[in-house]
């Protein structure tokens, strides 16, 4: 098996990001087809396709749509483009190369769930993609794909772009809703879930960019057509963002179930010369790290990675070679979560800072013998204790790094220097 250009088929063509170019390459034809279907048919098709959320949690999209209550209240469709999990940059590529692909997917999805108002919530740092999307939305409006009575179907949809201020937590769906409502970007207590009471306390569906884009392809090719890619439980293709010590980092689309080592060795051109694979963080920085040996067995689907105690997440694969000190890597990760904790729930607010201080201490040669066990205890108590998953996201890398690379941590604490890079101090390493 090799790379499958399915969603990304035309990404190499610059004209694909304009309305004309997109239409010439078959764009908005699926929308015409979809608008002639019954909304429920679309939902059923998406359910049958086995499409799972591409943002990180991997929840079945059709099932999520099915949670909307039939109470006559207005519904909202929100596109989560706050791509903030460290290591992830696939949504950025999609929005830059194919803004209309997302818009078409959103119109079809909004039609399916009967939403008349949709937003794309994009992270503040994505100024480039935001400008491209603004232009694309204006084009689509002018062409009658958005607004009143779309293509004579009687369906109305208003789509707006909302630019966030750049907080990791606004990528969490209820944090995003708070932010969109003009409040501080903090996740909301669940229940109620967004499908029941979301944006403005109305039924709301939040989907990732890639998820919404995939809907168009499911309607075009049917559930069976979509299922040609991927495995039984992880259907379809997925865009993976590969960063780290490989020869050709970047975004690659492969069918789910693809071998991790194939992706590294074939698509990404293998490891840098003379270096050896040490570890991979497979699903964004919050996913537990797996060792080189585990990588040999890993396939890129939800089940295999879950079985290995980690997750597919957003598909952000961070490849770490043997020149890296795992204590350094964890120090960067703990700093990130400390910086991004919204501060609402106590275990996360206090725990993220505590863990960072401990790891930071080790990196600066101030580690204490009990630090490793303390880190494990703190992380363990942060897991599953908070409103949203940020606490888990901060705890899981600590647990996995410390457990799987304990010798590096012990060495650092004992010798006051890195097992990998020796006495060089952290700041020099990253200067």
């Amino acid at each position: 098996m090799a790379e499958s250009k399915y969603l990304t088929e035309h990404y190499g063509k610059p004209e694909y990001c304009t309305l004309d170019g997109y239409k010439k390459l078959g764009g908005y034809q699926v929308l015409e087809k979809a608008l002639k279907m019954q909304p429920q048919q679309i939902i059923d098709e998406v359910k049958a396709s086995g499409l799972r959320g591409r943002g990180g949690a991997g929840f079945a999209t059709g099932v999520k749509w099915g949670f909307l209550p039939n109470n006559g209240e207005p519904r909202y469709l929100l596109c989560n483009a706050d791509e903030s999990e460290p290591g992830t940059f696939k949504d950025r590529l999609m929005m830059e190369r194919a803004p209309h692909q997302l818009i078409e997917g959103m119109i079809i999805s909004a039609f399916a769930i009967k939403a008349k108002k949709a937003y794309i919530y994009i992270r503040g740092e994505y100024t480039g993609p935001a400008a491209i999307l603004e232009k694309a939305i204006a084009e689509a409006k002018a062409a009658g794909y958005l607004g009143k009575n779309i293509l004579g179907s009687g369906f109305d949809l208003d789509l707006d772009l909302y630019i966030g201020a750049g907080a990791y937590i606004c990528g969490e769906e209820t944090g995003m809703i708070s932010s969109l409502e003009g409040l501080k970007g903090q996740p909301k207590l669940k229940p109620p879930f967004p499908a029941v009471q979301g944006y403005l306390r109305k039924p709301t569906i939040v989907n990732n960019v890639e998820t919404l884009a995939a809907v168009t392809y499911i309607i075009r090719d049917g559930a069976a057509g979509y299922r040609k890619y991927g495995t039984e439980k992880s259907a379809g293709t997925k865009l993976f963002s590969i960063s780290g010590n490989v020869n050709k980092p970047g975004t690659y689309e492969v069918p789910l179930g693809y071998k991790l080592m194939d992706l590294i060795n074939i698509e990404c051109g293998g490891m840098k010369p003379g270096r050896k694979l040490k570890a991979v963080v497979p699903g964004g920085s919050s996913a537990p790290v797996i060792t080189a040996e585990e990588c040999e067995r890993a396939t890129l689907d939800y089940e295999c990675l879950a079985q290995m105690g980690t997750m597919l997440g957003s598909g952000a694969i961070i490849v770490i070679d043997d020149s890296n000190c795992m204590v350094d890597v964890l120090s960067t990760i703990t700093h990130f979560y400390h910086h991004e904790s919204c501060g609402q729930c106590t275990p996360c607010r206090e725990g993220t800072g505590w863990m960072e201080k401990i790891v930071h201490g080790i990196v600066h040669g101030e580690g204490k013998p009990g630090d490793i066990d303390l880190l494990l205890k703190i992380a363990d108590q942060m897991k599953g204790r908070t409103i949203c998953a940020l606490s888990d996201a901060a705890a899981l890398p600590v647990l996995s790094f410390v457990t799987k690379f304990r010798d590096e941590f012990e060495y650092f604490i004992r010798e006051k220097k890195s097992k990998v890079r020796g006495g060089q101090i952290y700041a020099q390493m990253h200067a």
Partner: protein
Amino acid sequence: MLKCTLNGREVEVKEGTTIIEAFYQNKIDIAHYCWHPGLSIAGVCRLCMVEIEGNPRLQIACNTVVTEGMKVNNQSAKVKEAVKWGLDFHLINHPLDCPICDQAGECGLQDQYMKYGQYDSEMAEAKQKKHKVVDLGPRVVLDSERCILCSRCVRFTDEVSKTNELGIFNRGDRAEIGTFNGKPLANKYSINTVDICPVGALTSKDFRFRQRVWFLKDAETVCTGCSTGCNVKVYYNREGLFRVKPVYNSEVNGHWMCDEGRDVYKFVNKESRLLDARVVSGVKSEHMTAFEAAKRVGEKLKGAGKTVGLVLTGSYTVEEYEAILSYFKTEVGTDRVFHWINNPESFEGFDGLLLRGDRNPNTRGLVQAMQKHGLTAQWKELTEALSTGSIQTLVVAGPENQVWFPDFKVKVAELSKATRLIWMTSGKSSALDELKGEVTLIPMKSYIEKSGTFVNHTGRAQTIRPVTSIVKGALSLTEVVTAFRGEALQGSEVVPGRSENEVGRGRIHNEFTLSRGTW
């Protein structure tokens, strides 16, 4: 009703009850900080963890609704471990300044630590530094380092006072409570945020550093600051009263009280009180006990008829009104009884939450008593009678809270036209001290020192009991009448607090009573 099992005990709760409410209703301890029955659910402190049978993940009790047959446990090893760690997370950046913290002795962190913690902290890293002594407004000070960000105060200003002054600024462990530029915490209910603050982050400017709480006793009574009659607890020792806090009563004040009501105690303390009776006659001025002074007045009043007038304010109890009105009608022989209303223009006012324009605890009781005795005299009749001299002796009772009678000095000047003035009040005042002619000042007992009934604006009768004695020898109106008659006083024993059946239904049905204030 639903059946559920709490720590192995089967109980029944109403549909829609959350697990934490079920625990409270059944008087089972459960750790928590952010949950407050008078506020929305925040679910952020993560202390009220419970184990629900069939759910591998611990759940928070405050945001989980009880379902039929649910089996809940907060005593399992898993829950205890989670609560212990929950406390540790709260404490790692919390300063260890209990010895100089006003909250010490009634602190949520101290209490929960003694109940659920009792471990040695493993935090060896530097603590997070935050702002100290932040002046939030005229009555409240913030210490951000002590704050555990439970957001109760923010929710209070959002949901109860609806003034939205407070917010949480910054994020993560740098987050701090604060006010917006130029918008201080200045609402009329601001000290409630201090009450509901589970730690020493918010302190009342009035109370801070004045007394350690363990040196104070407390007793329940009724606030006399307006006609709402909030149920309150007063905190006192031998030196006097130090503070007032609201006590939950679903039918009167809910969980809250206003800031001005908290000042009522100041009128009760010795420094603002009339300490003994004074009889002025021309240039002669004589100090004596209240009883002696009243006895002398009584000798002159008996049978004096319509040359005597009586002015009453709404500060006294139903029982006192009854005693003095029947004395004046039958033994003095006058029906010239006048009702002194404070600030008539705002008398009917109401701020929409608790505070009423009628700044008397018992206006309704006075009106009812006057109606019962067929007393209908109007204020302008008094003005006329004083200028024509048809009233020569005037007896005035009150007001007890002089600050809320803006016309006090004007009225003193007006009423001093009477040949003989007998003024009974608990508070000292320069206006009264400067009176010339024939004047008798009689010190009265404050609401803290007597028993009786107040009828609030809705007609609800609420009982008060003596809490402590502050001015020895001061009299209640009932005792004044006894002295008028020349009879001996019966020693009244001070028994603090009120019994359950005196408190009334709303209080007893309080599902969330804890030992201390509104916790």
